[in-house]
């Protein structure tokens, strides 16, 4: 397995130290990968799991394999295209002033669709604010995601409807919630799994490290799914870590694996294996999906201040959708009619999102005072009444 097993990590503290030293001298992620691979002097297991090369060539891996029908492959393609289209539409709606902000997942479609489609309905997802593709897989209406970015609510959907928790903006918090939820699953004797999404930046937060600790000591059935998109706003991953992130798991006593996050097949294979691992009572697992944030951090960000177009160009060649399309074509699993149909469907989705967002009503002012407590609260009642009276004073004096 391309994982850091607990035993392995315990046996080789020296190796871990060396890995750390390497990490500190190398700056680019890909150099680090090569260096680490070379140093592992024996039967060259690639450090990163890949089943579909950037050129769209199907390759095999000693530990992970996947066998999907043409139908399933086309499904993954459709998911990625629709997600990207929805995401782009939302970004456009932000530019038009219909949304206050948007956090684009551009470039991370394979990481999200590959993992999201590996889940069962009874599994539970704890997302950050960028998991639009996972939300799609869970059946959450894209319009629901737009509410908080438009500023009409703070999320508002029922997490239990699709087992997809509310977006969490405070970096890292949700990893603990996922762990606690998984502890509950375990106590219930269920075989559901929980998956917590987080970023490379989040890996520095205390909460995330505490989540690793809790999950490990309770053997909780939770997958920590890190999308290493190389950036935390303007800070590259080497501001957060000097070892590859997946190796962090070893120190906490559970396995970690790095997967090509732009390879939807590999992500799905690895996530399936991890689900099997946690379902079978083996405790948590860390997946690091190695990918790239192709867009700005959010629509408020200006990445030209801190990164070069040349980095983008290199990653554009690894585009997750292009490579699956090549693969589909090579397999004769999809023809032009299929691609056209998906295109048409994505146009329709974009239109629905556009119209849905534009017609999303503002909440009424009194809604501020709703749902603050489950059992009510006297002060809220008092302030609600006072505010209603204050508002009606305008109606009286100004006649509107």
């Amino acid at each position: 397995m391309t994982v850091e097993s607990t035993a392995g990590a315990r046996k080789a503290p020296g190796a871990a130290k060396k890995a750390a030293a390497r990490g500190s001298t190398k700056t680019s992620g890909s150099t680090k990968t090569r260096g680490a691979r070379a140093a592992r002097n024996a039967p060259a297991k690639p450090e990163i799991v890949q089943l579909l090369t950037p050129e769209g060539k199907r390759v095999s891996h000693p530990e992970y394999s996947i066998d999907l029908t043409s139908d399933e492959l086309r499904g993954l393609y459709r998911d990625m295209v629709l997600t990207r289209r929805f995401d782009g539409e939302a970004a456009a709606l932000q530019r038009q002033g219909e949304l206050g902000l948007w956090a684009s997942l551009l470039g991370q479609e394979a990481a999200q669709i590959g993992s999201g489609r590996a889940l069962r309905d009874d599994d539970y997802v704890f997302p950050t604010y960028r998991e639009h593709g996972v939300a799609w897989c869970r059946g959450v209406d894209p319009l629901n995601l737009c509410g908080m970015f438009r500023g009409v609510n703070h999320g508002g959907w029922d997490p239990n409807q699709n087992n997809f928790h509310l977006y969490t903006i405070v970096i890292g918090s949700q990893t603990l919630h996922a762990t606690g939820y998984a502890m509950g699953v375990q106590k219930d004797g269920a075989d559901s799994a929980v998956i917590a999404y987080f970023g490379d930046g989040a890996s520095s937060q205390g909460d995330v490290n505490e989540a690793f600790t809790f999950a490990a000591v309770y053997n909780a059935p939770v997958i920590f799914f890190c999308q290493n998109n190389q950036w935390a706003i303007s800070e590259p991953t080497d501001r957060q870590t000097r070892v590859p992130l997946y190796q962090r798991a070893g120190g906490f006593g559970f396995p970690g694996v790095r997967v090509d996050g732009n390879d939807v097949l590999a992500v799905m294979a690895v996530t399936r294996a991890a689900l099997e691992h946690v379902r079978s009572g083996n405790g948590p697992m860390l997946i690091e999906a190695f990918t790239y944030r192709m867009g700005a951090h959010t629509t408020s960000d200006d990445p030209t201040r801190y990164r070069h177009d040349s980095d983008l160009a290199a990653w554009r060649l690894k585009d997750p959708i292009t490579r699956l399309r090549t693969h589909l074509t090579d397999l004769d699993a999809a023809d032009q009619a299929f691609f056209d149909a998906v295109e048409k469907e994505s146009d329709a989705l974009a239109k629905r999102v556009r119209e849905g967002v534009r017609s999303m009503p503002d909440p009424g002012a009194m809604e501020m005072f709703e749902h603050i407590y489950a059992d009510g609260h006297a002060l809220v009642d008092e302030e609600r009444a006072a505010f209603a009276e204050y508002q009606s004073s305008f109606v009286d004096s100004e006649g509107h």
Partner: protein
Amino acid sequence: MTAMPIVKAINASLRTALENDPKVVIMGEDVGKLGGVFRVTDGLQKDFGDDRVIDTPLAESGIIGTAIGLALRGYRPVAEIQFDGFIFPAFDQIVTQLAKMHARSLGKVKLPVVVRVPYGGGIGAVEHHSESPEAYFAHTAGLKVVTPANSADAYWMLQQAIQSDDPVLFFEPKARYYDKGEVNADAIPDPLHAARVVAEGSDLTIATYGPLVKVALEAATAAAEDGHSVEVVDLRSLSPLDFDTLQASVERTGRLVVAHEAPVFLGLGAEIAARITERCFYHLQSPVLRVGGFHAPYPPSRLEDEYLPDLDRVLDAVDRALAY
């Protein structure tokens, strides 16, 4: 004298501090190459290097905890918390360590740490980006809490905060970042912890700070049109609070309205109302009234205009106080 927005005044102040004192270091998320999400630290890493202007890992407890360590070693860290709502992972370090170490060492340890926090609402942001958590910190002994409302104060109060041997929470009214004002880098500034009368009046005092100073001044102008003379006090420092200046004002006017964006319940206004009632009981012609946020989470941005105390809400309180 140069006119500059608050965001530039803070930048200029940080630059001056870095130039004047080699022990000053700036640290925080994205403060380096990006120059901060609001560009407050724009260009500083380029000019002073990445060992003085430090991009930190994404961990607020880590930022404040290591700032404490740097201060113990003789540095004067100026730490940035990216947004008000993200100070809470650092709450423990601030309240249990930063605030108390001087006392625990019986005065032997000094922690000249400045924590800069863009705060307040009105910028149309998603949740956790519009909060006013100042009362939590003013409630904690060992911390000083200040907040400028204009460019000159932003420049000078930050100079003074960095020179202070006590930890200072420096709350920056982000909705006012781009408001311009004169900055005279050769002036002799007011003391850091002094309040200031920014508009004189005789019928009522509005005490406020940070983002609402502007609103209070507009209220004073509007009230003048109705024949009411309103005085505005910019508190500037929330801990310590300059009750003497406020008392003198209320003794002149007999009425006090306190306005802040933070929730009214147990906010700064509550303490001010209690103290001023004690100090000015026989001068008061009305109860001290408060205008502020509700006992509700900061709402989605489409409702923030309703939530935030605006000109109408402040005038409503002014009218109610004058009606006594």
